[in-house]
């Protein structure tokens, strides 16, 4: 089965649970005190989708959203973006539009957008009605789902939905000068060590 690497970038206000969602998805683990993304360039998890394997490279904001200083490089080459808000914080839903706009400005044109209302285990102090969020998501043709990273609700489903929306791989144009990542392995001809 072919492995396809898909970059997914997370967006949303500080404290809505972006890192918790990744942590739940990748390690099926929830931690109350995670300091977001210390030392993590991105986290990866591979899931099957049809006759492909999707290897998600999930990028966290590394706190650069805190003072509105996300770099354009953060969005480069993303296949999907997950915009997270906190269902118990109306503010975090209201800024969603700003994130959508930012994504439209800097993100790739064909990016799959998913909106995740996190902390749905705290339904009793909910401030954002699900209906309203769902309608907004529909209006921008985005995936919508409410999640709870703490109780492992809908986190897998979120990424499954994304997987399904990723368009199948087109016949890659054979370009003699394709782009590549720099690695420790200098030349393709020498022995492999990694």
């Amino acid at each position: 089965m072919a492995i396809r690497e898909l970059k997914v970038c997370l967006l949303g206000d500080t404290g809505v649970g972006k890192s918790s969602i990744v942590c739940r998805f990748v390690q099926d683990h929830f931690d109350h005190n995670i300091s977001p993304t210390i030392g993590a360039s991105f986290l990866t998890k591979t899931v099957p989708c049809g006759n492909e394997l999707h290897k998600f490279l999930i990028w966290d904001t590394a706190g650069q959203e805190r003072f509105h200083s996300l770099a354009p490089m953060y969005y480069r080459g993303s296949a999907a973006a997950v915009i997270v808000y906190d269902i118990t914080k109306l503010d975090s839903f209201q800024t969603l539009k700003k994130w959508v706009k930012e994504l439209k400005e800097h993100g790739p044109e064909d990016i799959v957008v998913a909106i995740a209302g996190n902390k749905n285990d705290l339904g009793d102090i909910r401030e954002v009605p699900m209906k309203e969020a769902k309608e907004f998501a529909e209006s921008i043709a985005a995936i919508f789902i409410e999640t709870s990273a703490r109780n492992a609700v809908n986190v897998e489903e979120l990424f499954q939905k994304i997987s399904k929306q990723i368009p199948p791989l087109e016949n890659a144009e054979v370009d003699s000068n394709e782009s590549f990542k720099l690695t420790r392995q200098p030349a393709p001809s020498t022995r492999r060590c990694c």
Partner: protein
Amino acid sequence: MAAEDLPSEFDVVILGTGLAESVVAAACSRVGQRVLHLDRRSHYAAAWASFTFNGLLSWIQQHHEESLPEAAPDWSSLLQEGEELIYLSGSDSGFIANLQVFCYTSEEDEEEEAAPPADTTEEEKSDNKTDEEEVEKQEEKLEEEEQEEKLEEEEKQEKLEEEQKEEPDEVRRRTSNPVALKLIESLNASHLVQSQTDHTQGAEPEEDQPHPSVTPSQPEPRKKISYAQLVKEGRRFNIDLVSKLLYSRGSLVDLLIQSNVSRYAEFKNVTRILTYRHGNVEQVPCSRADVFASRQLSVVEKRKLMRFLTSCMEDTEEHQAYKERPYLEFLRDQNLGENLQHFLLHSIAMATEDTPTEAGLASTRHFLRCLGRYGNTPFLFPLYGLGEIPQCFCRMCAVFGGIYCLRHSVSCLLLDSHTNRCKAVIDSRGQRISCSHFVVEDGFVGADRKKVATPTRLLSRAVLITDSSVLLSDSDQQVSIVTVPPIEAGSPAVKMVELCPSTMTCIPGTYLVHLTCQASGSAHQDLSPVVTKMFNTPDSPEQGERPSVLWCLYFNMADGSGVEVEGHDLPSNVYVCSGPDGDLGHERTIKQAEFIFHKILPDEEFCPPAPNPEDIIYDGESSTATGEEEKQEQEEEQEEKQDEGKQEEKQEEEEQQEEEQDVETHEEEQKEEKQEASE
């Protein structure tokens, strides 16, 4: 996204997000220093930035604005006993001068309320200090205005969205361009419609941007891409202020790999080395395969060239004998013939006629060592432009806890009168932030504090958007460097880089061409003779089978090569980073960043590899959350305790796993791997 105060205690505060500053930030953060990284601008990478087409137009506009000088706020009330203030220069725009824009393509857009079709060449007075300050103030004002506009925009947004629901048909009718049409359709589908449709409605402030110069349409069939289309697809451009390449075995590539920052970027090989000679663009054979495949070289020449390249890798007595004499002389005496001599001097050594043999040989060797690591030329270019590289280092810094804040500056330093060290900075909002070290971009240091400067050297730059490649070939996706020797005595040697759309720096159907040379006059004076010779512009003496220039920009920028890290009239724990220099590679900047890092942390390793993504385990024990999050998480924790104990069990199991898979051990493994690889 509520405004929040910055934390007030750091180990290292860094002002400016250029390459050197960003590398220092990443390196310090990586070894556990608390880093605050600021930039007064709203974009990353300072003079190393890349812009979308529209972003570039705004940047040009900012440098054209004039405004009244404004006094710096007086922060002396914040002083405590035994402290002195050092004000930083409020201006960072001094590094740009002589901006000139020309548009040679047609406006050609029906719904456009035609901008005046005058050949408006905008000029700016060079090195006028008050001007620079004014521009600076104006920028601040602009930013404020922008923010206000944004607020207004939001209010308007809902209203607009409603309007747009009703209007798409009209918009469609008014748009003739199929690409734009597609764009608008997709925009309508998503209801995110803002600038583009507003543009057609003529109501968006963004679109009040300069149409810096628009000439009446030039009837020529080849010109298909209009100015309107450049603007419309502007976001797909990534136009660098600096034009450089990465040597495949240069210090930047080594650093990217060593630190694992390379994960954040992708690269393309420069596919061709070209040179301009006798009025023609020719390909320079440089790899063994090229040499043998070359049709320009005779068999004798091929043999001579191979012999020369092999022999120059080792230092011989003959080389020593020519040490102080020009490389050109050495080449002449090798009886290589005019062809080879030209290639070797201009394209391989990238030397001038006065370059001494020693330097010429050194750069020839560097060139040859870099061949074949990734491709057939020694050079790489990052996808989306050079501006990505500083951003990648910034991300690395952030990933290790560095705090980022754009549109935020340091207005002065607090000096401890006894120790003569900077103990804190005061930011542009009057907040006192303590630090042990301060790193600053050269542009923010006032001229009065700088080491007596020899007259600032300048680089001349030109950026062209053209409609085809300077040398047609089988593939239209070539990335080329073109060396242009002085076209007449006394004119500068020009380095030209031509980028194809697959580098993600320009739109299909165009090429982005960067020209760079040491300035002797204004950028236009230095570079327009080359442009009019190699491309079709209205100023070209005759229109030939050459690419046409659709749009171009000339400007001068400060050459960073003269700026020293130390020796300024500044506290001993303040380090100055220079801006980009005119070299093709990045050696000086990387060396400088490493030097500053070791000044700050003499015993720490410079940019050790970051752990692999697969090896990261979130470790709740050792990490700390701050502020709001912490509170929130504490609340959650309390609620959690009331929950069933099932999760706790799970958690314990995972913690055990974590102990086994400690990040540090992975780092060690990586080091070993690295050693193996280097062997």
